[in-house]
């Protein structure tokens, strides 16, 4: 098998060996339904409690504030729908222009259902202005949903302050913390955050398991209705093996938090430094904002992201792009557009997201191959390195509307 250098940990992560091991017993041995009356079932129930305990330690909350879901998207939908259902007279939602589609597209859908949505803008550093939030809050606002950290740029948002503002105004606050959990310390008991979403597969647990944190005392209306699981807050037989795996992953994430912010951060900084030194005409996005320690969004001028990714992929290097062509849409990602990244750069944006499994040697390998790839594509590009941009003035007059 070809060598794989995996720098795409914001997309998904490798399941940790310990997590995998933790799960095994629940497939063929401890397979009982935790809701069953018999001793066999009761035995399994204990493991759910244990996982809940471990996750609450990672988040700094109470175990009973944890609801297991199937994924981050389910957590986001559950939180926002619950806020709307428990505030039936309020029809306004506030979120940001740079949310993950799990929140953004839900809000767009809700707009078609008669809700009004305010999308907070970001500046060229990808940062929101809390004054905009204060100005947007009205008596009609049911919920504010702001991501803790952005998946494309790694920019960290001041959600604790935002939650404080919302609390003062009596508005529910939800945060999509899918990218932040495990990468930056979180202590929910010290915040006014009402609801928070997690996805297991971003922290070395498998895909198909998530968590919704709902602060004690916050009214909750379930998304899935049926059995009494999760104290009536999320029906459906518990995904026991994955819940156990997620508990283990949470334990490891807490243990690795320091490494994430020293070792991984060093690798990321080294990657950016070496890219800056070896490749001309680049731009690191969100550099002037607080960022996750593992994420780097780099725009390469005059070349296109999908081409970069495919040539990197030939060398076994996995990364992501916010460029238009990779997704089949025709414009660069909504995050880059919201940040007003110039088009000469936006189309050539690559996201590298690291984990504790990456090494310095891998960073060197990536920079070496990347320099070749960019050089090759710039040789093909009619725009590269200071040549006149023949078509630019043709299109520049046409503003891309949003």
């Amino acid at each position: 098998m070809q060598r794989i250098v995996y720098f795409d940990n914001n997309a998904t992560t490798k399941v940790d060996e310990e997590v995998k091991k933790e799960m095994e017993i629940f497939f063929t041995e401890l397979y009982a339904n935790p809701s069953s009356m018999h001793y066999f079932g009761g035995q399994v129930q204990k493991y759910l409690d244990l996982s809940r305990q471990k996750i609450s330690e990672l988040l700094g909350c109470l175990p009973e504030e944890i609801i297991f879901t199937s994924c981050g998207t389910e957590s986001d939908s559950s939180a926002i729908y619950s806020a709307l259902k428990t505030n039936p007279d309020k029809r306004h939602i506030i979120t940001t222009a740079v949310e993950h589609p799990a929140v953004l597209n839900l809000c767009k859908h809700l707009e078609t259902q008669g809700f009004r949505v305010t999308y907070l803008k970001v500046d060229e550093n990808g940062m929101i202005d809390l004054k905009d939030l204060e100005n947007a809050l009205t008596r009609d606002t049911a919920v504010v949903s702001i991501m803790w950290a952005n998946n494309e740029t790694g920019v960290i948002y001041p959600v604790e302050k935002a939650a404080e503002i919302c609390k003062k105004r009596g508005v529910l606050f939800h945060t999509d913390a899918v990218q932040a959990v495990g990468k930056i310390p979180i202590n929910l008991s010290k915040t006014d955050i009402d609801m928070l979403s997690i996805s297991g597969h971003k922290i070395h647990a498998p895909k198909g398991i998530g968590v919704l944190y709902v602060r004690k005392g916050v009214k909750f209306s379930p998304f899935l209705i049926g059995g009494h699981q999760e104290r009536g807050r999320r029906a459906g037989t518990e995904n026991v093996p994955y819940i156990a795996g997620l508990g283990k992953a949470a334990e490891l994430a807490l243990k690795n938090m320091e490494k994430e912010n020293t070792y991984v951060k060093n690798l990321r900084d080294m990657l950016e430094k070496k890219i800056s030194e070896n490749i001309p005409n680049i731009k690191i996005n969100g550099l002037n904002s607080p960022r996750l320690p593992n994420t780097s969004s780099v725009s390469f001028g005059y070349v296109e992201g999908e081409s970069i990714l495919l040539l990197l992929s030939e060398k076994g290097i996995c990364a992501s792009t916010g460029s238009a062509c990779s997704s089949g849409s025709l414009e660069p990602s909504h995050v880059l557009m919201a940040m007003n990244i110039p088009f000469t750069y936006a189309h050539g944006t690559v996201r590298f997201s690291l984990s504790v499994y990456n090494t310095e040697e891998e960073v060197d390998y990536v920079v070496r191959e990347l320099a070749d790839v960019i050089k090759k594509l710039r040789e093909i590009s009619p725009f590269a390195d200071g040549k006149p941009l023949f078509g630019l003035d043709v299109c520049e007059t046409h503003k891309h509307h949003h």
Partner: protein
Amino acid sequence: MWNYTEKMMEYFKNPKNVGEIENPDAVGEVGSIVCGDALKLTLRIDEKTHKIIDAKFKTFGCASAIASSSVLTEMIKGKTLEEASKITNQDIADYLGGLPEQKMHCSVMGMEALEAAIENYYTKKGVKRIIGEQERVVCKCFNVTEKTILKAIELNNLKTVDEVTHFTKAGGGCGGCKGEIEKIIKDFWAGKEKIDFNSMTVVEKIKIVERILNEDINPKLKADGGFLELVDIEGNKIKVKFLGACSTCPSAGLTFKDVVQKDLKNKINGEIEVVLV
């Protein structure tokens, strides 16, 4: 991940004819960095035979844009401008073993660059060529003209706005022109729908012919003071009569052939027979 063919990946990884010809005989530039892809095609053309002796490209864009540009240069080398001008975007896509539908605009870009280069060559030579009538820009985000859209619809049998976006990018930005694209598609196909005239009832036949006479043909004749009347329909045979100025006009015969027969056949089907009585 896109389902790219091996051939396409090969042309992307090892593109042929990258570069720019110095002092080229023709240059075709399409797209822009804002739009996400752009192609500069330079040609060396034999003045006597009008054959393309050499072709080079420079492309900014995704893998399929680079591969499409590269095969285009291969396809046109050795061809005369006349032969090369017959290459369509579908030919480019076929050469690559097919492209994902959302990437078809890459092949359209190749075809457009070639058209632009040929145009450029003749302009340089001082040869005046008929420029298309529909240069109106429909999609302002990606600078796509009505001509490009109509050509893509016709060549690729496009029926929906999404398909037009996949092939031309039009409508893929702010989406403000989607309504207009829909109308262009509708109008285009309205003229192409084949009608099973023969199995219609006489009343249905009369209605459809009357409608075409009133909406399409008579407005044209009216300008010259003429008028066309339906006399009878027998099976596939439509009998009509000129009235007014047309009845005595010496070029009425030509009008009948160029306007009346053509319009009716286009709107109904090619099997009908139109006769003057």
